[in-house]
């Protein structure tokens, strides 16, 4: 518990020191997407019975919580390959589970922070949705899944460039194809089958349903929780791989 809090404490300290930079950086992309896709397409375009802007906001929440939770991998890699602070953690009497939990919590915190920014921007754009328990549960599960995946992969990569490759090949395509900007069911059948294997598709679906006050699909929540648990366990085992 203490070790986990120490790791989380460090990430929070860094987040606090970079507060305004982070705030600006986390605001830029949702703002651009809202302007370019949301306001640009106007309120007259309707998707699934809602204005496109209303359709877009939950998708942006899903996408940004994924991106920000996964960004913890970059922080870990900077600590590992650039500042070598990871050695301080390796030399400390710290269990793998404490390290992984601390970093995953930090990833979830970043994701929640970025979600709050999007909701404020959405509110200022006149979009009011339902931010109920199911909404936040889906955001947290999505963040948990991608933060756990990020910590695990950060233990396996050998350099910064490896990390950039993972982001370019997995996170960026998922961000655009996982039901963020358009309904997945408008794609051809075979593409829909492929997209249903992406966790972000289920996160966007669950977050959007909750935001529209529709009944939750338990499968999406169970899938996110199960994948999150799997990645968490893998991350826990892969911490040892980071030792020389």
């Amino acid at each position, binding site marked *: 518990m*203490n070790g986990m809090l120490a790791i989380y404490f460090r990430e929070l300290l860094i987040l606090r020191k970079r507060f305004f930079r982070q705030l600006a950086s986390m605001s830029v992309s949702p703002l651009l997407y809202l302007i370019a896709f949301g306001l640009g397409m106007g309120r007259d375009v309707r998707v699934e019975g809602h204005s496109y802007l209303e359709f877009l906001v939950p998708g942006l929440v899903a996408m940004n919580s994924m991106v920000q939770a996964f960004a913890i991998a970059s922080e870990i890699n900077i600590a590992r390959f650039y500042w070598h602070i990871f*050695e301080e*953690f390796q*030399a400390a*009497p710290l269990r793998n589970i404490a390290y992984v939990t601390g970093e995953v919590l930090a990833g979830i915190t970043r994701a929640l922070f970025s979600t709050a920014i999007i909701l404020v921007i959405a509110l200022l754009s006149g979009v009011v949705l339902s931010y109920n328990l199911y909404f936040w549960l889906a955001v947290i599960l999505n963040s948990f899944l991608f933060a756990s995946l990020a910590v695990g992969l950060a233990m396996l990569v050998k350099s910064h460039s490896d990390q950039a490759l993972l982001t370019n090949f997995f996170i960026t395509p998922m961000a655009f194809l996982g039901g963020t900007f358009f309904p997945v069911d408008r794609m051809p059948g075979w593409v829909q089958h492929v997209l249903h294997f992406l966790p972000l598709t289920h996160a966007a679906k669950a977050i959007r349903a909750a935001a529209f006050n529709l009944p939750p699909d338990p499968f999406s929540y169970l899938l996110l929780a199960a994948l999150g648990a799997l990645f968490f366990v893998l991350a826990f085992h892969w911490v040892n791989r980071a030792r020389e």
Partner: protein
Amino acid sequence: MIRIENLTKKFKQLEALKGISLHVKQGELFAYLGPNGSGKTTTIKILTGLAVPSSGNAWLHGFHIEDDSLQAKRQCGLVPQTINLDHELTVSENLQLHGKLFRMPAKERASRIAELLDYIGIADRRHSPVKSLSGGLKRRVMIARALMHSPKILFLDEPTAGLDPAIRRRIWSLIKQIQQGGATIFLTTHYIEEAEFLAERVAFLDEGRIVALDSPGNLMAGLGAWALDELVDGSMETHYFRDRDEAGHHIRQQEGRFSMRRVNLEDVFLAVSGKRVLP
């Protein structure tokens, strides 16, 4: 205090350690010398949990480094070769984080930070961001951080690498003070004079093997007290003598240009390995 038995480490094709065995006594200041790539840092990384041994065993204060790794880690503090402070945090925050990682209660952390920053002479910089400190100050903060949880064993991996001579000497006196406080110190260095000044015993490492192990005095006495360097056909030859008179006699008997000096640990390493520590 530190017991190592037949420790090996292989990195794919490279055999970095080839069966190291040694015992460092409680309160001893032990220096581990060798040229770059001889296996010094690999040994420290294995002992402190940063690397996994390929075979062999080691115990820190009676705790096995792999089977009882958490207890073993609690016994030691590490000052690695590379500066690994959190540059975004202040001096005090770096020490706080270390204290939290070692489960120190908040009150104890606060008093220990004040005590250590005073001890290393940078109490006035406690709220300075680490990135604003000079290289020498960063090294001192790293030593303070390693001492936060009052370890019984302190590993110092090239603690003065890249520092100017005046700062190096300040760090030497700090290391001496730490040892006088009762800690066992395991020091790697390729500065011969550092080992001579600080260490009670020295192990020479060459290509993953210990090639000599004794006190600096005993190791040097095996060669003699004085050395004459002579330039012969463009290469340096060194002759060793029991005393200064014997060396002077040699100069008078032989023709050539000689340079007379005291024998040092570099001569010992040269004699046992045929190489210089600093090529």
